[in-house]
């Protein structure tokens, strides 16, 4: 980092262990003070995170707690890069002559030294590592007892994204070391097959550390392991056996058909097709040298033997025996706790943050406080904080990574401190919109690391002209409006809905969404469906909701998976055959491709997007329907929302439309539609079968948002604004405007327990 660029970055960052807590519960915060400077900690309630001079301004209510104070600052490292750790055991101890082998699918063979499987001590430089050398060739490295390092390389650069059988052997008695690199596909004029041998004097140095797969060991760092030489790519069926095997014996080992006389020599033979949903990897040898995933490499990946006959790993785990490692995977940063807050009993439900400050640098670590008990809460409305969507966008890098970013927005992106920090600290991991350093898509996103674009004050390149807010900070427009209007409204998170189902909504009559609730797990969907079925009212104050299916992990908290399957607006595409979530076994991807378009939930679903300026709605004849009279009380304008902080209008960024064939109920009223969007707006790709000219905002009728209302069979109702920019118009003219009035009219009627007519 050059000195000047550093001045624009952040010098203090942190995260919390929980995202949602109730009064009386504890929440801990982990902080890295990048210059080891002491810092001040305090807490705020977040009401409005938009600092635009054109709006109501920043509203962060300062709070006083016993936790407030000055803390000793320490820099804490985010140790990115995934691997498997297998604890040392007697079965490994005293290893002298051995064979190590695996199937590999390297993705960055030219990036420098990488370790595929190692029992290596990076400080003492002893043990062995089968890996890739600086030539991009498979290499066996032996560190002898004198600390001298010997290497034998195939000398043939690997071809990226092709399968190879690789092995290394070492015979302590003769000092003979060999390496083998066998491509599974052959290409003309491509010399990527090789073997080599060397004689090594001395004995292999002892190593009492663990075996790592996907990296090599350096040292313990508290409860964490510092590793290096991270490998990018897949590994399938790694094995370690004492003694030097012949090529034919290696083949017997690979096919798990060892002759009896060799079975007793087997030290470990891992099968990654077992326990795909778990964080444990299983050794099928009698030694049971099971390993544990660190930083969550991707499972449910096609193996070397994938036949293409089966797309679901659960039906053919033997063909999904690969794990894909990335040198920038991050799960739990695992930092030391800096301070812990017991949430005061008098804190009302809402958005809060721990605020840490050192000099001019500061960071906010947001969290949600729920009501003590939803069943007894005064509030009958609840705001569903779309934390799944925040996690998906967590630490997104598109303006600095993706050539299409400036085309999508029609603007030069503005980078905040947070973006600059993330640009140069790739070890903080990416979002599910990013690609890993090897070009493969990021399927897993964790909140157990600083998420720097989930902050009040943060402006996003995706947030349109003007305030430029997106996701978390954009949703404070809704929080602020509720506060300004004096509505009692609790907050819960997507994770609460996921883990508790409809019980999390007990006692509430109205659920308000955020501006962009895009990511939904199956339990979340079912929970909201059940809420509607019992007459609950839904106010969808955004767009592009219920789009991607996501999965939370059964045993690893705070991490979420998406598979960018065969359709939809995708920043990357999952490999064919890798569309099933590894965390749950569900078919992943778009809910629409699972037979549940968003129109089935909200009456409207994703239709178009663009990120420059917003437009307005024009009333349609359905707005005159007497069933909609309450919505337009006090609103005589034909044009709605031709103002706002997000792009200058209430219809913008992402737009949803009604479509009976996609599940919009037949009784749905389309009250108003947006029009006159710029040509930066394009129809979503799932609507395009044969591609054709004329799919942009000035020409195509699918580039529109439909504001809709419909009653549900249980006497409840749904109102959908169908535009992400809607929330940015609420505060215009001191909250006195037609967007605010419509939203208020709907919320007041939805809070009225009188059933809507259904006959």
């Amino acid at each position: 980092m050059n000195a000047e660029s550093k001045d624009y970055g952040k010098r203090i960052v942190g995260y919390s262990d929980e995202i949602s807590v109730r009064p009386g519960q504890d929440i801990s915060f982990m902080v890295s003070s990048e210059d080891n400077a002491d810092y001040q900690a305090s807490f705020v309630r977040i009401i409005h995170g938009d600092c635009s001079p054109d709006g109501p301004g920043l509203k962060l209510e300062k709070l006083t707690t016993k936790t407030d104070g000055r803390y000793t600052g320490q820099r804490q490292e985010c140790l990115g890069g995934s691997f498997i750790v297998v604890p040392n055991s007697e079965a490994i101890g005293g290893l002298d002559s051995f064979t190590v082998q695996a199937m590999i699918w390297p993705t960055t063979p030219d990036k420098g030294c990488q370790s595929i499987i190692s029992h290596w001590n990076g400080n003492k430089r002893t043990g062995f590592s089968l890996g890739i050398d600086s030539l991009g060739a498979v290499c066996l490295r032996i560190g002898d007892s004198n600390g001298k390092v010997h290497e034998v390389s195939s000398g043939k650069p690997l071809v990226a994204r092709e399968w190879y059988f690789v092995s290394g052997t070492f015979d302590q008695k003769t000092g003979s070391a060999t390496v083998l690199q066998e491509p599974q596909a052959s290409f003309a004029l491509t010399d990527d097959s090789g073997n080599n041998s060397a004689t090594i004097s001395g004995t292999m140095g002892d190593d009492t550390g663990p075996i790592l797969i996907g990296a090599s060991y350096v040292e313990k760092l508290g409860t964490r392991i510092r590793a290096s030489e991270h490998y990018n790519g897949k590994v399938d069926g790694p094995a370690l056996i004492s003694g030097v095997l012949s090529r034919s014996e290696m083949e017997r080992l690979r096919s798990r058909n060892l002759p009896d006389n060799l079975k007793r020599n087997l030290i470990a033979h891992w099968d990654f097709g077992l326990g795909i949903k778990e964080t444990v990897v299983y050794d099928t040898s009698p030694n049971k040298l099971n390993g544990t995933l660190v930083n969550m490499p991707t499972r449910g990946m096609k193996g070397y033997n994938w036949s293409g006959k089966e797309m679901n790993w659960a039906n053919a785990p033997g063909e999904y025996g690969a794990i894909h490692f990335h040198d920038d995977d991050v799960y739990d940063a695992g930092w030391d706790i800096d301070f812990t807050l017991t949430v005061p009993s008098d804190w009302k439900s809402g958005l809060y943050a721990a605020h840490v400050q050192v000099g001019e640098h500061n960071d906010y670590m947001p969290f949600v406080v729920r009501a003590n008990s939803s069943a007894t809460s005064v509030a009958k409305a609840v705001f569903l904080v779309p934390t799944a969507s925040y996690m998906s966008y967590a630490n997104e890098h598109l303006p600095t990574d993706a050539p299409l970013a400036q085309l999508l927005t029609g603007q030069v992106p503005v980078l905040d401190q947070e973006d600059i920090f993330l640009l140069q600290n790739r070890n903080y991991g990416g979002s599910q919109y990013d690609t890993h350093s090897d070009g493969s898509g990021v399927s897993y996103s964790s909140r157990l690391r600083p998420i720097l674009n989930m902050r009040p004050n943060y402006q996003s390149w995706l947030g349109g002209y003007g305030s430029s807010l997106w996701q978390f900070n954009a949703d404070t427009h809704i929080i602020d409006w509720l506060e300004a209007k004096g509505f009692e409204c609790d907050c819960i998170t997507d994770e609460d809905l996921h883990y508790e189902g409809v019980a999390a909504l007990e006692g509430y009559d109205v659920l308000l969404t955020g501006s962009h609730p895009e990511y939904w797990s199956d339990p979340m969907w079912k929970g909201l469906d059940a809420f509607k079925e019992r007459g609950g009212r839904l106010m969808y104050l955004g767009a592009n909701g219920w789009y991607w299916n996501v999965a939370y992990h059964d045993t690893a908290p705070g991490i979420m998976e998406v598979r960018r399957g065969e359709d939809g607006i995708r920043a990357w595409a999952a490999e064919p055959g890798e569309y099933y979530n590894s965390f749950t076994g569900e078919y992943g991807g778009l809910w629409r491709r699972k037979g549940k378009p968003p129109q089935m939930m909200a009456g409207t679903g994703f239709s178009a997007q663009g990120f420059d300026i917003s437009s307005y709605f024009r009333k349609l004849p359905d707005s005159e329907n007497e069933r909609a009279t309450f919505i337009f009380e006090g609103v005589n304008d034909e044009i709605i929302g031709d103002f706002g902080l997000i792009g200058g209008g209430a219809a913008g960024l992402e737009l949803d439309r009604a479509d009976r064939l996609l599940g919009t109920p037949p009784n749905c009223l389309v009250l108003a539609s947006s029009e006159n969007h710029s040509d930066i707006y394009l129809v979503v790709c799932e609507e395009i079968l044969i591609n054709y000219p004329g799919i942009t905002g000035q020409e195509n009728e699918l580039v529109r948002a439909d504001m809709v209302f419909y009653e549900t069979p249980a006497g409840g109702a749904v109102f959908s604004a169908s535009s992400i920019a809607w929330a940015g118009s609420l505060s215009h003219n001191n909250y006195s405007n037609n967007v605010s009035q419509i939203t208020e009219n709907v919320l007041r009627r939805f809070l009225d327990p009188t059933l809507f007519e259904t006959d």
Partner: protein
Amino acid sequence: MSLFKIDAEKHRHLADEFRKNPVGIHSPALQKILNVFRGSAMAGKYVLICVKPHQEWRLAQLGQERGDPLILKDQSFHSIEEAEWEIFKIRWQHYTGESLQ
């Protein structure tokens, strides 16, 4: 990456259109030029740094490789429109070899 060829003489009037309205609905001809500018590869691509929110922005370029430090430039701006116009001029010169000054 757009293959459209910008002709300095033929398209110069579109620069005026851009200057009057840098963000928003553009003529199809101007949009083609902007697609060239905005769709370029990442190495050296121009971005803005927020110095003071809604008040001051500074010009910068991305480095050659992903993760490289930003290259900070001297120009600062007090409106987004001013910044957009400056970057438009830089890109115009890059693609046409001619100055819009």
